């Protein structure tokens, strides 16, 4: 006898409160700006956190940052899945924004894996319509003119 099968979708439509620090970060993204945060020891965290993971102390004032940075490590995604930020092959990368001491995870739209390398410079590509989400930052792209 044939065995039945059927799609089964489990869905939770949560809303999350951001807290003051992430809320400020997302508000800046909506404005098309990157904003980190300074710790009591003078380091700049990007993305910002409410507490310094090194000391446990509350972080301090926001630090405006440029939309440019450097890839510190990466992994190529040859077959993007539903829910991925890009629908064509891309790299997940840790990107240290200029002026920051930590790196953020995001997508790099490089076209092909051999266009990626650790140390390459990238710049942010923004969505035209932004809502206050990490996806307002559509992805990073290699800085034009830089040889792979």
């Amino acid at each position, binding site marked *: 006898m044939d065995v039945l099968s059927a799609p089964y979708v489990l869905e939770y439509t949560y809303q999350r409160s*951001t807290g003051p620090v992430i809320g*400020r970060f997302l508000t800046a993204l909506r404005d098309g700006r990157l904003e980190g945060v300074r710790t009591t020891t003078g380091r700049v965290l990007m993305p910002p956190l409410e507490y310094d993971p090194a000391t446990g102390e509350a972080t301090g004032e926001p630090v405006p940052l440029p939309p440019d940075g450097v890839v510190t490590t990466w992994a190529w995604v040859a077959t993007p899945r539903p829910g991925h930020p890009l629908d064509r092959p891309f790299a997940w990368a840790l990107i240290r924004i200029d002026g920051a001491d930590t790196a953020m995870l995001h997508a790099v739209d490089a076209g092909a894996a051999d266009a990626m390398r650790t140390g390459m410079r990238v710049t942010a590509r923004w969505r*035209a319509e932004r809502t206050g989400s990490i996806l307002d930052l559509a992805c990073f792209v290699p800085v034009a003119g830089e040889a792979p």
Partner: protein
Amino acid sequence: MSDDAPDAAATAAPVTMVPSHVRLTYTVTAGRHLSSYLRALADRRIVGGRCPVCTKVYLPARGACPTCGVPADQPVEVADRGTVTTFCVIRIPFEAAPFPPPYVAVAILLDGADMPIFHLVRGIAPEEARMGMRVQARWVADDQLGPTLASIRWFELSGEPDAAYETYANHL
């Protein structure tokens, strides 16, 4: 890169909440015994499986009796009426709720089965819900029948007197 920022964005209220949707898309495979139970529902029949050792009728049928450890695949058709063993009044609305609250969800021990199934009872006020109610399936129209428990739209009071507690006490 922020040249294309809409002017409104700069003056909009700070972000304090974000959507954080979770969506998991599974494919569920029913297996042989659950498949036969589901197929029967498309035919307005409710079919369980009897254990040959303890004679309990599992509903839906399962491959083996968990008590006796033997195959429990003797098909047994049970009634589409039975006794409410437990109930819950849903008073809080949620997405995908079948009805506006309040409504009554129940465990029903169908006549001939030893395992209750879960369904809804309509046609009674929530205050009237009680253990021992006798209920009858209201099936969907023929062209809406399918291999799903949704072939039973809901249950309604059958008009019989309530069942005595002793008749379902071992099935709670």
